[in-house]
C-alpha cells in the first residue's frame, strides 16, 4: 500500500482494508504523534467540502505534518484555466502526498496517473469517496466488534448515493446481509444487486421502514433530495417516509447503531440525537483516525 494512490475503495483488498482499520484503532489510542514531522501534505479542494477538508487537516496536524493547498478552486490557478495535469505536476513538486476533492468524476484517477506522489481521493463528483467508506467501516467495526455476518440497513437515496454503493462493495467481503429501504424512484441499481447475487449474499428491498428493523445491526441513513425526483409530487409523497425518529428505535437490538455520512438535513429527527444508538457524530470523529491511518500507511510510516 506504500506509495500507492487511493482512488477507489476497490483499490484495497479485504486484508488491506483490515490493515487500515487496525491502524486507525492505534491512532485512536494515540492520536497525537510526530510521525509526519517534516512532511508536507497538499490539500486540493477544487470544490468546497468543509467537513472532509477539516477532517483531513486535523488528521495531518495531529501527526505533526504541514498542509498546503486551497479550499476552493475559485482562488487558485485553476480558475485561470490551468489543466488538472499541470496543477498536479506542480503541486507534487511541493508535497509528499496529495489529498484531492474534485467535482468531476474520474479526476482522482487522472491525478493518480500523472502524479509522482500518491493521491488520496477525497471525493470525485458522484463517483468515489473511499476515505468515507473506510471511516464508515471503522465505525461499524468499533461498535459491533466485528465486520462479519452483520445485518446492514441502507436507507434513503440508494440510487445516486455514492457512499452506500461504496459501503456495499466493501462490506460484501464480510458476508453481510443487506436491507434496502428507499422510494421506488431511488432504488438500489441493478448492477449492485447483481454483484451481491454473484457473491451469494442476501438482500431485501422495502419501500418504508419495516418491523425487520428489529434485526438491524447498523442503520445507515442518507438524504433523499428533492432534485433527484423527476416528479416533484413524488418527492412530496415520500419525503417524510424516510425520516428516522426516536420512537422507531424502541424494539431495535441493543448493539444497533445509526450512522449517517453527514451533513444531515431532516432525515434523522433531532430526538434521535440523545439516544445512545445515535452514532453519527462519533462516526465523524472516527474519520480523523481513519485518515491518519490512510496517510501514514501510504507514506510507509
Amino acid at each position, binding site marked *: 500500500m506504500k506509495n500507492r494512490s487511493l482512488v477507489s475503495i476497490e483499490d484495497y483488498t479485504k486484508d488491506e482494508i483490515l490493515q487500515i482499520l487496525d491502524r486507525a484503532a492505534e491512532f485512536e489510542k494515540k492520536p497525537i504523534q510526530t510521525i509526519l514531522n517534516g512532511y508536507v501534505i497538499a490539500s486540493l479542494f477544487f470544490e468546497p467540502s468543509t467537513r472532509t477538508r477539516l477532517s483531513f487537516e486535523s488528521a495531518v496536524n495531529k501527526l505533526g505534518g504541514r498542509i498546503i493547498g486551497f479550499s476552493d478552486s475559485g482562488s487558485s490557478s485553476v480558475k485561470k484555466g490551468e*489543466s*488538472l495535469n499541470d496543477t498536479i505536476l506542480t503541486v507534487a513538486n511541493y508535497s509528499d502526498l496529495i489529498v484531492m476533492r474534485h467535482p*468531476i*468524476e474520474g479526476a482522482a484517477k*487522472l491525478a493518480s496517473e500523472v502524479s509522482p506522489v500518491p493521491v488520496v481521493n477525497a471525493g*470525485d*463528483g458522484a*463517483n468515489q469517496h473511499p476515505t468515507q467508506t473506510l471511516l464508515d467501516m471503522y465505525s461499524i467495526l468499533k461498535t459491533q466488534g466485528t465486520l462479519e455476518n452483520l445485518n446492514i440497513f441502507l436507507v434513503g437515496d440508494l440510487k445516486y448515493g455514492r457512499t452506500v454503493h461504496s459501503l456495499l462493495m466493501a462490506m460484501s467481503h464480510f458476508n453481510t446481509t443487506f436491507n434496502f429501504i428507499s422510494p421506488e424512484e431511488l432504488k438500489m441499481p441493478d448492477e449492485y444487486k447483481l454483484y451481491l447475487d454473484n457473491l451469494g449474499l442476501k438482500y431485501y428491498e422495502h419501500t418504508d421502514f419495516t418491523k425487520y428493523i428489529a434485526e438491524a445491526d447498523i442503520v445507515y441513513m442518507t438524504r433523499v433530495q428533492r432534485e433527484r425526483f423527476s416528479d416533484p409530487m413524488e418527492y412530496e409523497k415520500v419525503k417524510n417516509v424516510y425520516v428516522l425518529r426516536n420512537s422507531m428505535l424502541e424494539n431495535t437490538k441493543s448493539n444497533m447503531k445509526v450512522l449517517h455520512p453527514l451533513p444531515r438535513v431532516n432525515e434523522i429527527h433531532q430526538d434521535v440525537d440523545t439516544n445512545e444508538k445515535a452514532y453519527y457524530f462519533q462516526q465523524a470523529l472516527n474519520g480523523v483516525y481513519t485518515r491518519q491511518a490512510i496517510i501514514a500507511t501510504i507514506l510507509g510510516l
Partner: protein
Amino acid sequence: MEQSKELKVSAIKDGTVIDHIPANNLFRVISILGLDKIDNHLTFGNNLDSKKLGHKAIIKISDKFFEDTEINKIALVAPQAKLNIIKDYKVIEKKVVNVPTEIIGIAKCVNPKCITNNENVTTKFKVLDGNDVTLKCLYCEKITDKDNLVIIK
C-alpha cells in the same frame, strides 16, 4: 454467390478488403482506421445485400496492410468484419476482428461529468461485453453502451 457480390466493387491488386461491415457503420470504420486521411486508393460499396447483416458495406484499400491492434479498433462498430489480404489479385490470408479487452481512445464516455469530457485526456475503457458493446470507463466508472456509443474523430 459471394463472388458476384464482391464484383460490385472493383478488384484490387495488392491491399486489404474489409467485408461484412454493417452498412450504417461504414463511415465510422473509415474514420476509425483513418482512411479518410491517407492517399491510398480506396473504393467502397455500401448497402450491399448480406444474409448475415441485412445491409452490409465493403471497403477495399490498395497497398494497405493493417496490424492486428489497428484492425481490432473497429470491433466496436463492426465486430463481424472479415479481412481479406490481397497479393497480386489473390486472397493470401483471411483475418477476423477480435474485440480487445481494453479500448483506448476511439469512443467517448457517455458521462458529461467525466474527466475525459472536461479535460484533454484520452478515454480508456474496459470492455465488459464485446458483442453488445458495453464499455466501462476507467476514469468515472460509468457504462457506455451501444445506444450511447459516440466515436471520437
